[in-house]
């Protein structure tokens, strides 16, 4: 072996690459083994979920489900889940339309200005608190706020002319709080990764801070912003509590009165998460086949978003040296 050390090093077998060196202690070997085990276990769980949902989903899913409206009333068989699919996208888009620009603006302010310092610290803690608040708490808080008569334009009114506090607009608005920390975090990280000398190069060409942000820093953070927005949409699509409390979780669209588009946005409806809950025997319903099919569609949407994040981050172009 000492005769051809170069040959051994040129083509190391897998085990040599894992160990990196021959001088690893027994503790290190156990550690590496555990790390491998944990990784493999995670893969196994993911594969199990996807395979199970794939089998069940394909077993029960039919195209007519995806393109037809649910029948009114719980427990009734028949009907598809077109409304919840559209509802999922409406809520996700409403949420991200609010959270995207707001999150990017907060991230830019925190990384490029952050004066006065106490305000920056307060904003940071605010984001952390919002990120850590369970969505059920956000939902109940939203209900209290939007049931005030000041917001009566945003949702159908119940008895005594008090607003229900439940509509796509309200649910989307509260959902934006779920996505906001993710957008802020990813954008901040992207801005932080731009070396200081890149900003200084822009200043050295006679540009002020605003045009440096607009022309250099934001374009350079595109990937980070895209990642944050996509992760945020995934978070919104997967949420159930806000849909239950702030959207009504009705199986079908139940538009408010008013102009066509506006009546939908201020009306009630559901998303795939509540549809699954309302149809699964584990939840409220007795239509497991509908629940499986809808869960499969939900999983497919979320996986597609994760895949999009992968694509966004993998294509990382050339960057600067610090």
């Amino acid at each position, binding site marked *: 072996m000492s005769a051809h050390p170069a040959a051994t090093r040129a083509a190391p077998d897998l085990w040599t690459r894992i160990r990196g060196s021959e001088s690893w202690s027994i503790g290190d070997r156990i550690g590496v083994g555990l790390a491998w085990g944990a990784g493999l276990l995670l893969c196994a769980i993911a594969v199990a979920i996807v395979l199970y949902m794939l089998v069940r989903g394909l077993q029960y899913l039919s195209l007519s489900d995806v393109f037809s409206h649910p029948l009114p009333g719980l427990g009734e068989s028949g009907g598809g889940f077109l409304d919840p699919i559209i509802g999922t996208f409406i809520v996700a888009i409403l949420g991200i339309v609010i959270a995207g620009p707001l999150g990017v603006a907060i991230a830019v302010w925190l990384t490029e200005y952050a004066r006065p310092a106490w305000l920056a610290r307060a904003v940071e803690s605010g984001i952390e608190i919002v990120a850590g608040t369970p969505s059920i708490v956000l939902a109940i808080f939203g209900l209290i706020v939007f049931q005030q008569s000041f917001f009566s334009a945003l949702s159908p009114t119940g008895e005594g002319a008090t607003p229900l506090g439940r509509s796509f607009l309200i649910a989307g608005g509260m959902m934006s709080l779920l996505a906001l920390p993710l957008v802020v975090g990813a954008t901040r990280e992207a801005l932080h990764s731009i070396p200081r000398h890149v900003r*200084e190069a822009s200043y*050295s*060409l006679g540009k002020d801070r605003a045009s440096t942000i607009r022309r250099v820093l934001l374009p350079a953070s595109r990937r980070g912003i895209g990642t944050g927005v996509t992760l945020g949409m995934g978070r919104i699509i997967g949420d159930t509590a806000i849909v239950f409390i702030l959207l009504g979780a009705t199986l079908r669209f139940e538009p408010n009165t008013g102009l066509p588009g506006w009546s939908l946005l201020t009306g009630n409806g559901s998303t795939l998460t509540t549809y699954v809950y309302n149809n699964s025997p584990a939840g409220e319903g007795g239509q497991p086949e509908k629940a499986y099919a809808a869960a499969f569609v939900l999983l497919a949407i979320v996986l597609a978003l994760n895949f999009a994040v992968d694509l966004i981050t993998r294509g990382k172009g050339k960057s600067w040296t610090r």
Partner: protein
Amino acid sequence: MKMPPPVRRIQVEGAPTVVPAPANGNGHASAVAGTAPRLKQMPRAATTPLERMRTEKLSIAYGSKLAVNEVSLNVRQGEVLALIGPSGCGKTTLLRSLNRLVELTPAATRGGRILLDGEDVDGYDVTWLRRRVGMLFQQPNPFPMSIFDNVAYGLRERGSRKPSKKELEPAVTEALHRAGLLDEVKDNLDHPALALSGGQQQRLCIARSLAVGPEVLLLDEPCSALDPISTQTIEETIVHLRSEIAIVIVTHNLQQAQRVADHVAFMYLGDLIEYGEAEQVFRAPVAERTREYVSGGFG
């Protein structure tokens, strides 16, 4: 059997700093044995050097730490001024003060005066000043946009009028030509700038600075991240440019200073120890510190 760990070879940046041993330890003439040939192929400036910038008893402190201590210097068009000295001697701080970039550091304070064409730089609008006094950084830092847009960057958004691509084209081409990059990129102006090689990126940064028409160009170790060939190309560009633009270069590479500089300022712990013609500073330094530094005694 255990094998010895492989030796990790550390890549030396740019040209190696060659510090030959002095032939004998006494006498000014032999204090330095640097043999780097100057880039003499380039004609000297046709006109006599013209003063563009001057510092008068310039002091800069970061909090309570004095980084530059009462330095008075002249920066002239038609020649290259090299700032040399060991790390932390204040040469980069001095350079960054010339276009008021040092003001971006919150704790930095300044004393003394900096004049551009006889006028105090504090009297100028800072964005205007920075267009007159351009800067190049240690790491190439083109913006994440096309080659064309990088060079046009400084020309756009001036005032309310938005110049079209066609209007900008002659200025962009001219700047790329002066930076010696035009032949390599003229067919790919719409390619992303970050896809260029390191040396090309740095020349693109030069072109980007030249496009806004500066009178002074500040170079902060512009070749320290580049290979020897790119370094040579950039040094030739620097020597070419000095007739039109006053150039100040901070460098750790004494050979580079010998190759490109007409005047050399040696700084140590914030003080300007020695300032003079490059030939004199390297061949016959007056101060003991300078002699030690240029002969490789410390640094």
